[in-house]
Each structure stands twice: as C-alpha cells, then as structure tokens.
C-alpha cells in the first residue's frame, strides 16, 4: 500500500520526520519498503499484512500513526445534500446470491457534468501511481484509497429498468470488463446485473457497457461487501486482479459502506455537480460486529516477557478504535472496531498492546534455560555416509521429488504400486532437452531416474568424472488417501565401472560397521543391465540395488555413455551402523600370507569360492584378497577361468608355524576342490 505524506496530513498531524515515521510504522507492523519523492509529496510504500485490510486506506494508516504518536485523528463526516426525489422510486437492488455478496448499498446522483477531477485529488492519486480518469471515477478511487472500501460508479442510463440484481454468474456467461478484455465466467462468480445482462463483475471490475463516460449524466454509486473467498476465486481464475479485488480478498469493513458511499457522493457533488437523490438502497445483511475481548494484564508479561504499565493498556486500545472499554484490577475488556476482524482473542490484544508499546523494548539477552540436545542416529548415519561418499569423490545432488511419468515408469525397485500423483505439476524444473517429456506430477518411488537425468545433464555439458549421490525420501503408496511410506534412500550415479561403485558401497558399509560384509543376489530390472546388476544385501537384510544403466533406458534418457546407478535404503544402513565401536584385542604375532591360483568353471562365482576359503580358514583368517581373473583357453580348456587370491593368516595367541599354515592351505584347497571342482595351478 502506497500512502502519500500530504494525504495523511488530512487526518493526522505529521510533526515527526519522515525517517522517524517509517521506522515507527515498520516497528509496529507496517513494514517500510521504500519512499519516492513525487512533486513535493512523498509516496511511502508500506507492506500491509493480510490481516490488516484496514490499513489499505489512508485513514487506517493515519489511525496507526495517531496511536503511535498519541496525537488526535481527524476523520471527515460527509453529509452530502440531497434533493427530495427518492432513489427508491427510480432504482431497486436485489441480492440473489448472499453467499457471495453480503451487503449492497446504492446511491443515485443525477445531472452530473463529467470533467476532470480537482487538482488536489489528481495530485494525490498520482502520488499513489493511480491513473486519472474523470471527476466521478477519480472520486470512487479516492475514497477507496482513503478508507479501504472499494466503490463503483455506474452510468445509470445503461442500467436497464434501473434494476440491479446481484447474482451468481451463469456458467460460461460472457462479460466485457472496463479493461475491454472479454471474460468467460463460471457459476461461482458474483456479477452485478441489470434486468438483462451482467454489468459488473462484483468486487473485481466494472463492465465496459455501463462505465461512466463523458456523456454520462446520472451515476449510481455502489458500495458493497463481497465475500473474501468468492472474490479471490474469481480474480484468480480470471487472472484479473484489481485494487478492488485485493481489498475484498482481505476483508473490508462491512460497517463502513454507508460512510464511504456518502463520502464519494459528497466529493462528486463538489466536483461534478448534480443532485443526490434522497435515501440509500441498503440490502443484504447487517454489518458484522465483533464480540468483546478480555485481556488479563498478566498475560502481557507472560507472553511478551516485559512489563507494560497497566495504565498504558486501555488508552492504547481506545486509540486503536476499540470501544466499550471497561477495566478491573486485573484485566481490561473492550470491543474491537468493525474494521478489525482480526481481533477476536486475548492473544490478539496482547499483540496490539505490545506492538504499540514497542517490540524494540523486548530484551534479547534473557536467561533461556539450558537444555541438552542430541543428534538422532539417522542424522549421524547420514553424516558418516556423506563423509565416505565425498572422500570417494562423489558430489551431492539435490533433485525434485516430483518426476514425469516416463521416468517414474523406468525404475521403481521398492514398490510396484503406481505412484501418487499431484494435482499440480511442477513447472519449469526440466532442462530444455527433457522439456517435452511430460508433466512433472508423480511422486517419485526411486531416486535413480532423477540421477540418470543429472548424469545426462552433466554429460551434455561435457563434465567429466561425474559421480553423484543424493539422500532423499521416496514415496511408496499405502492406499487411497493414506499417508504414504516415505523412507529415505541413498541414490548413486557414477561414470566409473560397476566394481568401482560396488567398492564404494562396500567401503561405505564397512565404515559404518567393520564386521558387516556386502553380498549380492541376482536381480532383474529392465532399467539395469542383465549381467551387470545385483541386489545388495548385508546378512539377510536387503540394502538395495546396483547396476549399469541398460541400453534401453540410456536411450530413453538420452544418455550417451555408460553409467552405474545404485539405490540403498538408509534405514538398513542406519540399522547396521555401529556408532560406538568396542575395542577388540589386536594380535601382536606376525602374519603368514599364501597365494592361490585356482582353475574353475566360468560359472563359479567369486563370492561362492570366497565363502569356502573363509570357512576353511576359520578364526585364523585375517583377510582374503581377490587378485584377478585370468582366462586362457589354450592352457585350461573352454569355459574355464583362473581365480587368483591371497589369504593372510594370523593367530591371536602365537606365531603361526609353517606347518599350521600348510594345514589351513590344504583345507582351503580340498574345500575348493570338493565344492567348486577347483583345481590348484602348480
């Protein structure tokens, strides 16, 4: 809301400096956003919160100033002259949609002479950046910016039969507004109609057909109260926002209609002449009147943390327009004014008294009691995971929780239930390349599709060594209108190879828990390469999946080169994470290392052979290290491979003798022979 310094002086003396005024206003709730000097005046831009529609007019702001500076407030008392002819003989108003129009008043002025409005009025409107039209329209605007009540002037000659019907629009009813745009209305919108057609979109904008023009002689002045929701919906659906709709959306003062109507008639008579007909048409419901509110003095200190003198309270409430003020030794009771519908409870009055007294008087160094806080295990686990992954050269990504359908369909390992859908899509979140892929309106069930897209973006931008991870929730539907399961997952995408990424995951797991070992099981997803993919487990707990992105999905996403993706369940990682490791004695005896070279069938998996070796070593095993796989059909025949490995043995209680080590080796060899038909080379 822009207010003019000069205009404010109409209602309150401004003896303070501009800077002092805007500081006080800021600190009492009207945040100063800037001031522009305009032609000897100052246009002061104040931010008005949505609960303070009363400050969307100069009088409201002046009232605040009067309360802050304890100075009198002057409000005009318009008493326009009327002639004996009665409006009720010429005009009628009927409200058929009380759910959208609460109250409607009309006055009629005959014989006006349309011309420019007075200079002083033009100057003030121009200070606010309001366009100048003529002495009638300008007067309605002036009064709106004076008291916050939107008004409208119709060319009475255009109102067929002088009959006004306030009704809801017909579905698809056509309407041409003053801005000369055509609108198609729906049945939730309120229109002002004459005996035939809509002549205004109630509370939003007048109609082109009935607007005041140079040839207008009789004007009908509307001052009405339209319901907040109806106006908001209409303005929003039609993308038609006006100073009028802005005010109705925020709830104007239903008790002020008559004042505003008289005030605008007075101004029109002054500048455009004409005769005001006797009486007012006033239909609809009576003004809403707030209930009294009681404020107990001790609540001020209890909520604000400062002592405010009791003597300050009642006069402040009075300055703010509250009436019927009564006090006893512990409280004050008062009725809020009609323009302050936000004051309904004790806490509201606490704020009123506090803000006028000054929040700057509230200290910022009181003794807040100490309290112990702790970091949940999930939090600490994520920190460790991030530590390992960044050490491994992975950067962290953050991608949107909603994704388009093709991505959602591409990979959903955690559930087969269809994703939840948002009624609104996310707009403007896709890169140019993916723009036409579909609406971004599905709640993702996996982080992987988003990460594949991130890999593509980086590939497109010629970025190298791209390794990224993300920790975020996925949304696994439970049932209609049930809050979905929302576990946090860890997603990875990397341009390294399968084993490099698997190694990162193995390192991650062993960092969280030194005794946990990752094993794999087969899996089958169309998004993952048939061979280079696996389910990842620790003992019997499923961690997630790893795999190379399949050709088809690479093609779908437009990814040119290979990428490895993985997705792990954070709860599973959290569960296995050991936060406080327990000391285990380290052996001070030397190790014995032995190398093996087995010829096995191609079908024998390392993991199986390794388990056999592990079992054969028993407690003496320090480590098993895979060395390499070697194939030579000439030496070993078809479908054979050599698996080379090293075993390190160590005893906790003595130096291992060569003989003891040899015993273990024999058992390794025989175990591998019997279980995997492995033949030792050499």
């Amino acid at each position, binding site marked *: 809301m822009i207010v003019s310094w000069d205009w404010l002086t109409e209602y309150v003396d401004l003896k303070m400096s501009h800077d002092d005024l805007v500081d006080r206003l800021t600190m009492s709730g009207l945040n100063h956003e800037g001031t522009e000097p305009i032609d000897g005046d100052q246009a002061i831009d104040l931010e008005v919160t949505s609960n303070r529609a009363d400050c969307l007019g100069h009088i409201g702001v002046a009232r605040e100033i009067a309360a802050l500076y304890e100075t009198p407030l002057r409000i005009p008392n318009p008493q326009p002259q009327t002639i004996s002819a009665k409006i009720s003989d010429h005009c009628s108003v009927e409200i058929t949609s009380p759910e959208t129009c609460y109250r409607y008043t009309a006055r009629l002025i005959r014989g006006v002479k349309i011309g420019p409005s007075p200079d002083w009025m033009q100057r003030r409107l121009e200070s606010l950046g309001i366009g100048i039209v003529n002495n009638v329209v300008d007067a309605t605007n002036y009064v709106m910016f004076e008291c916050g009540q939107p008004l409208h002037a119709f060319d009475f000659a255009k109102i067929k039969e002088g009959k006004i019907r306030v009704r809801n629009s017909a579905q698809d009813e056509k309407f041409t507004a003053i801005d000369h745009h055509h609108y198609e209305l729906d049945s939730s919108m309120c229109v002002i109609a004459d005996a035939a057609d809509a002549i205004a979109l109630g509370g939003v904008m007048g109609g082109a057909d009935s607007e005041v023009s140079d040839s207008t002689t009789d004007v009908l002045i509307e001052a009405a109260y339209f319901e907040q929701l109806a106006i908001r919906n209409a303005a929003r659906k039609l993308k038609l926002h006006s100073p009028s709709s802005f005010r109705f959306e925020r709830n104007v003062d239903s008790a002020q209609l008559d004042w505003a109507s008289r005030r605008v008639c007075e101004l029109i008579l002054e500048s455009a002449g004409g005769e005001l007909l006797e009486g007012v048409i006033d239909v609809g419901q009576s003004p809403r009147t707030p209930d009294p509110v009681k404020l107990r003095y001790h609540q001020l200190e209890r909520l604000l943390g400062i002592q405010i003198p009791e003597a300050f309270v009642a006069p402040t409430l009075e300055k703010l327009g509250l009436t019927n003020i009564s006090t006893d030794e512990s409280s004050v009771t008062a009725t809020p004014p009609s323009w302050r519908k936000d004051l309904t409870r004790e806490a509201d009055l606490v*704020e009123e008294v506090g803000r006028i007294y000054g929040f700057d008087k509230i200290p910022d160094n009181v003794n807040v009691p100490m309290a112990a806080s702790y970091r949940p295990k999930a939090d600490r686990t994520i920190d460790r995971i991030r530590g390992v992954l960044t050490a491994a050269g992975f950067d962290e990504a953050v991608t949107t929780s909603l994704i388009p359908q093709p991505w959602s369909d591409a990979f959903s390992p955690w559930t087969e239930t269809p994703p939840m859908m948002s009624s609104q899509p996310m707009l403007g979140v896709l890169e140019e390349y993916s723009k036409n892929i579909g609406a971004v309106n599905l709640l993702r069930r996996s982080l992987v599709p988003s990460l594949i897209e991130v890999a593509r973006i980086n590939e497109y931008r010629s970025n190298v060594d*791209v390794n990224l991870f993300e920790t975020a929730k996925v949304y696994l539907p439970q049932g209609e209108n049930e809050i979905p399961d929302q576990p946090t997952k860890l997603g990875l995408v990397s341009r390294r190879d399968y084993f490099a990424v698997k190694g990162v995951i193995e390192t991650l797991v062993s960092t969280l828990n030194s005794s946990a070992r990752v094993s794999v099981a087969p899996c089958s997803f169309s998004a993952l390469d048939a061979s280079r993919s696996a389910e990842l487990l620790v003992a019997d707990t499923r961690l997630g999946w790893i795999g190379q992105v399949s050709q088809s999905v690479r093609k779908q996403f437009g990814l040119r080169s290979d990428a490895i993706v993985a997705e792990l369940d954070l709860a599973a990682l959290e569960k296995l994470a050991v936060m406080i490791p327990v000391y285990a004695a380290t052996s001070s005896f030397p190790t014995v290392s032995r190398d093996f070279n087995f010829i096995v069938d191609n079908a024998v998996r390392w993991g199986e052979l390794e388990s056999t070796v592990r079992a054969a070593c028993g407690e003496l095993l320090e480590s098993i290290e895979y060395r390499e796989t070697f194939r030579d059909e000439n030496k070993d025949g078809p479908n054979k491979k050599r698996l080379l490995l090293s075993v390190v043995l160590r005893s906790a209680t003595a130096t291992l003798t060569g003989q003891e080590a040899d015993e273990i080796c024999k058992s390794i060899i025989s175990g591998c022979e019997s279980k995997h038909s492995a033949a030792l080379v050499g």
Partner: protein
Amino acid sequence: MFMTDGLYQPSLTRQPIMSATAMPIEEFVKQLDELAHRATTAFEVATDADSLDEARVQFLGAKRGEFKSLQKNMGAVPGESKKEAGMKLNAVKKTIQLAFEDAQVRLLGGAGEAAKDPEFDPTLPGHSFRVGKLHPITQTINELKDIMGRLGFTPAEGPEVEDDHHNFEALNIPRSHPARDPLDNFYLSVAQSQNNDSTLADNPLLMRSQTSTVQIRVMENTEPPIRIVSLGRVYRPDETDATHYPMFHQIEGLMVDQNVTLADLKTVLHLFATNYLGNDVPVRIRPSFFPFTEPSVEADYFWNGKWVEFGGAGIVDPNVLRSVGYDPEKYSGFAFGLGIERLCMIRHQITDIRYLFTNDVRFLRQF
C-alpha cells in the same frame, strides 16, 4: 608382483649368515668400539662433501664398508653372547650414523643427499585425489542444525506428504485462508485412480507447504518441555524463476514450556544470528502476521549496515496449542522459520535458485 605360477610360499624367508671361526664377545665389542671411534673422527674432520662421502663409503658403504664387514663377525660370536653382541652392534651403528648425519648437516646444510639427484623435480604435481562436495543446501542446513543444537534444539523429522490437518487445520489456517487454495498446493491423488476430487476429501493429502507440520506431529506425541528444530523440503507450485522454485527447504525451531516469551524468542534469534554470522549481530523483531503465531513477528538482523530479513516467528497461537491437546493457560511457546535457499544464496552469492537444483558438477564443486 603377484606370482601366477608359484604355489603358496611363505612370504618372508631369510637364510642365516654363518661364519667359520668363533670370536669371543669381548673381541667383537673391542673391534666395534674401535670402529666407532675411527668413523666418528673421520666424519668430524671431513672438510667438504667429497671427503665426507669418501668417509661414508669407507665406514658405512652398503657392500664393502667397514661396519658391514664387522657385522659379518656376528656369526662367529658364541650363541650365549649373541644377544649382547647384537645390542652392541646396533648401538655402534647408531653412533656412526648419527656422526655421519651431524657432519652432513654441518657440510651440506641439512639438504642431505636429495639435492644431489638432478633428475628429481619436486615441482611436478602430486598425486591428488578429488574429494566430493556436499550440496550447498546441505552445508547450510548442517550449519544451522549445529547452531540450533548448541542452543539445545534437537532435530526432528516428519513426513513430506502430509494431510490437510497437519499442514493447515492444526496450524490454525482455516479453509478460507488463501494458503489453502488448491492452486497453491500440491494436493495428491493416487495416479491410477480416476478420482480427481481428492482435494475435496475431508483430509486430503498434499506435499507439505511448510515444515511447521513437524511441530504438530512432535507436540501431538510429546509433552512439554519441547525444543526441536525441523528441517527439510517443502513444496509450493510457484512458477520457476531466479528466486522461486516449486521445491525448497525450510528450517523451523519450536520451544514450548511454561513461561516461554517473546523475549526468549528474541534472545534465541540473537544467539542464532551471532553464531551464524560470527559477530555480535543486532536482531530486531517487528509485528507481522502468521496464522499459527500470535503475536507474530518478522525478525531482521543488522548486517553490513542494513537490516536484512531473517524469517518469520512468533508466540505459538493458542489455537495451535489447543489442537495438539496442550493447555494454553499452562504452556506457551515460540516458533520461528527460515528459508534455507535464501540464506544459502546470500552466503555463497548464488544469483539464481535454479543453479541449486541443476546439479552441474562444476557448480557443486565450488562449495
């Protein structure tokens, strides 16, 4: 090198060196002492690098040095004296070595032999490795969480898909409030069902539009005193531009106890700002409006000569306390919330919010 064809072998094998004639321990010690004396003297009198190197070869040479030759006599020392002989040998070796190093420092200024290798180029790049970076949003969140943790606030988590009750109703946001407009929220339905009327259901689901929902969930399940901080993603269907994105992050603090006041709030915000910005930063609060707090305030901090908006805050509205079953006559509390993106962008001078979510690694690696 890994051996491909050898069967397992012990990793360490060393043959003992045996000598033919026996030597009494006394004789061995005497020879060592004498060697030590001659070697240290030679090193002490060396006058330049060449003469020092000559002496080094004579006494410490790896193949024919005198120490090496004497060491071979170890084998001739009788078994029962071996341990003593070994200890003496080590001591003398150390003495000679130290004398050499002293001379080296004296003559070569400590550069040792390294300076002599003309092929070694110490300016070649090291074998560096790339450490990944945490997302700037995560870094900001971690810092804020840390600060709040020091002030006694424990992190709390809540669902991102919420119901109307927790996102609005319990927060004193009535159905008529503009924040609840279906066009301003990501209301949900199950994709496969054709029922698009879910927004009309009693308690429809939506992507949470604020982290205040976590407050409600915590208060529903906990009795005061409460001191939590909730962080995470929130969603509003804004059109994307340089300062708007339909997904962003918030941090929200809540403290409820008996006698929690606006002064406590201002104090905590002051500590928070001072902690975050690393100075004694003035904080002011000014009246504002939020449905879930009364009084509501906007907090600013004074930084670089001007007041900068910090975030919204206030005393928890009695309706909110009632909605979770607290008695507003007994308990009071404050809450405050900040947008993470704004803080992060100001901190790192990031000019477009979309950069945060494009995940170009050249961007991510800057932080």
